[in-house]
């Protein structure tokens, strides 16, 4: 293969030469798909550069990149530039995979626990009208969103579930009261025409509602 004379390397002073060597190394490392060994990096230049000197320049490049999102690292097969792990979350936003979704069963169970806590599995089953598989509760416990805060003193002493602090944090809520009010829904249910979706601001609720609700629940 014909080798072309490198103008870039035909320089006047040692310093200039070194800075050009540095640029060439940096460029090659930035475009390379795989790590480059000292041997490969040496092949970039017409004039031979011994490995000690190459290593010195690579160390300099490493220092140059210290405050950047990308770093020069040495791995088994050579040197490569790689993004610092802290930046992955930004880059991940570029190609958002569809996040997994919880099944309706999980969401409904979570909704019941959020709004009716503390509740037993039996309570959840009563409301949903179907059996609640232990996996659903395990999923939510595993996520750290619900936990058992006691047992109800009835035969079988069923566990009582409630939502955790982490649940509030993950949903960006300060307290359960910031959950959407369901008043609006009840109004709609009663076929009274109302406008928009419920809002999150605190609305005064008639005290009697709770009493009524309690009284209205069949024993």
């Amino acid at each position, binding site marked *: 293969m014909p080798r072309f004379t490198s103008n870039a390397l035909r320089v006047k002073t040692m310093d200039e030469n070194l800075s050009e060597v540095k640029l060439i190394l940096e460029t090659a490392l*930035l*475009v390379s*798909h795989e790590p480059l060994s000292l041997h490969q990096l040496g092949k970039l230049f017409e004039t031979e550069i011994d490995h000690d000197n190459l290593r010195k320049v690579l160390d300099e490049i490493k220092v140059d990149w210290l405050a950047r999102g*990308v770093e020069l690292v040495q791995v088994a097969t050579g040197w490569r*530039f*790689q*993004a610092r*792990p802290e930046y*992955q979350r930004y*880059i*991940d936003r570029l190609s958002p*995979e569809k*996040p*997994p*979704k*919880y099944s*309706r069963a999980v969401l*409904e169970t*979570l*909704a*019941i626990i959020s*709004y*009716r*806590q*503390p509740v037993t599995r039996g309570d959840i089953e009563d*409301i*949903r*009208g179907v059996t609640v598989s232990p996996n659903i509760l395990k999923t939510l416990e595993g*996520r750290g969103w619900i936990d058992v*805060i*006691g*047992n*109800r*003193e009835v035969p079988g*002493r069923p566990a*009582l579930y*409630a939502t955790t602090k982490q649940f509030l944090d993950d*949903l960006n809520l300060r*307290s*359960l*009261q*910031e*959950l*959407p*009010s*369901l*008043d609006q*829904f*009840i109004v709609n249910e009663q076929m009274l025409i109302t406008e928009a979706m*419920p809002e*999150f601001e*605190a*609305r005064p*609720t008639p*005290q009697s*509602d*709770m009493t*009524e*609700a309690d009284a*209205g629940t069949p024993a």
Partner: protein
Amino acid sequence: MTAATLAEVQPVARVYGEPILQMPQDLYIPPDALEVILDAFEGPLDLLLYLIRKHNLDILDIPMAELTRQYMVYVDLLRHTQLELAAEYLVMAAMLTEIKSRMLLPRPPKPQDNPEEDPRAQLVRRLLEYEQMKYAAHKLESQPQVGRDITLVQVYLERVAEVRMPQVSVLDLQSAWESLVARAKNTRHHRITRHELSVREHMTQILRALAHGRFVEFIELFNPSAGVPELVVTFLAILELAKERLIEVTQQEVYAPIYVKRLESEDHGRESE
């Protein structure tokens, strides 16, 4: 063949192993060389263009007779090996013949509204169009190209296989609840008011505070600085918990401290779990 005017060192082609040092200078291409040479052209238009340019012919004054005769020779030779290409050269020959014949015919007086075009004009337009596209192809090829003249930066990113958790929003919860209620509408109503929610939240908090079966003084469960509504809600939560038999509220004597305790461990212990 006419005398060579160009001194070319590299053979332009080889025919039967013999190098052809230059493109034929005549319109006439020896049959031996024809296949090789025609291969080098993209078709009859390309060849015609080459011949015109090579001989510095005026594109508007093509020697039609000579060209046509030459094309017929090509067609004859080609039809044995490349029938499709032969057809294309034949079309060109026919076109050239037609142009030639129209030029030979006496021109009828032209009607004013339909002036007859020079029969060569269309060919010339095509040749120029084609030549321009050949030029464009040449320009495109000399354009810097990624992978050939340009290398893209590609820094490695070690993707930590992050377990992506489903995201849930408060609206998801609301709609889940609404669909529940819609389903259960005929049998019962679940009215969750903001007030009740805050009572329920406090019930959970109190149960957490009473973990491990310890006694907690009643007043410790209240946060006096939180305001009256908070105190009322806490009180309601304690009542609700007592009603649901989740806690026990005891007082030894009047005015003695009231203690609150979770009910579970006393009667049953944890072995039932």
